[in-house]
């Protein structure tokens, strides 16, 4: 229940920041729940600080049947999504749009992509490999990963804040959302965009350079 609310909420927050950002220096919002915690400062004294939600450690098999972890995305920003190869509805549109971004940042090793399959029955690494090749994006910058149902569904809902449900009454057996989630180098969520909506994808295109320039200062 909480999750359902948090996406519209975070989008609302994103909208406000986008509107206000027109006036000043551009910076992307940090999305997701946050907590205020007492932390030890370097000089030994303690103080209060805001702790943002981050993507926790994970370990999945990629399209080359190699185990990859968060380490793969160290010092990178990346776009994460959830899909399955036999999806005939929103996934082709999401990946058409993501591929456009991929083409644009092909020469920038700081930008990566992470697509999780939610079809743990059929989408084995070799199926993912074929898919990546056919989509024309199999250069390593775009990782396609396979994991147990629990691990993928949990990270989707708890960490990337994307709803994924296995539902035998749905036409293709799954209900899921087409969010493209933008993650920064500190593993925080900096944007969530509907990957089937041209306007939101255009916004994502604009936000990537903003996020990249953040670390340059």
């Amino acid at each position: 229940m909480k999750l359902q609310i948090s996406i519209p909420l975070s989008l609302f927050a994103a909208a406000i920041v986008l509107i206000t950002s027109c006036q000043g220096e551009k910076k992307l919002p940090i999305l997701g729940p946050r907590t205020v915690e007492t932390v030890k400062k370097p000089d030994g004294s303690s103080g209060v600080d805001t702790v943002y939600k981050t993507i926790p450690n994970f370990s999945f098999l990629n399209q080359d049947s190699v185990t990859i972890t968060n380490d793969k995305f160290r010092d990178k920003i990346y776009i994460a999504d959830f899909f399955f190869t036999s999806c005939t509805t929103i996934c082709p549109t999401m990946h058409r749009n993501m591929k456009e971004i991929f083409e644009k940042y092909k020469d920038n090793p700081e930008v990566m992509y992470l697509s999780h399959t939610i079809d743990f029955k059929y989408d084995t690494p070799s199926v993912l490999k074929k898919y990546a090749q056919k989509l024309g994006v199999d250069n390593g910058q775009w990782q396609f990963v396979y994991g147990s149902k629990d691990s993928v569904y949990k990270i989707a809902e708890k960490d990337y804040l994307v709803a994924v449900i296995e539902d035998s009454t749905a036409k293709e057996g799954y209900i899921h959302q087409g969010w493209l989630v933008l993650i920064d180098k500190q593993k925080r969520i900096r944007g969530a965009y509907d990957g089937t909506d041209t306007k939101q994808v255009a916004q994502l295109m604009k936000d990537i350079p903003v996020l990249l320039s953040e670390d340059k200062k």
Partner: protein
Amino acid sequence: MRRFLIGTLFLLLLATIIYSCQDAGQIKQDVYYVNGRDLYIKHCQNCHGAKGEGLGTLTPPLTDSVFLKSNREKLACYIKNGIKDSIVINGIKYEGTMPAFPELYDIDIAQLLVYISNSFGNKQGMYTTESVATDLKNCK
């Protein structure tokens, strides 16, 4: 009363003449084209793209005029029943599957075919509901 009847008949005749002057066939094709575009956006664009460009080698483009022409009678079957066999488009082999659209009526299929076969660089004229019905009877 009689004058009224003659008047109406005259008007009807006039309307028919004007209408047929504008080439009824072309008007019908234009209507099919516009409706076909809406259907295409709803059912096909996700895979085949707004410009019929396809998606990598997952989905073929709809720009191979020679293929569309030489398979004219099979196109309705492709849409209604989907495609499982591999297919060669513009010299590239595609080995995916296209989903079936059993829910589409013959007239929807005719409109879709008018749209795709007169867009994306294709120019192949009219498909009627009747020709689609005939083609569907001969599906393999």
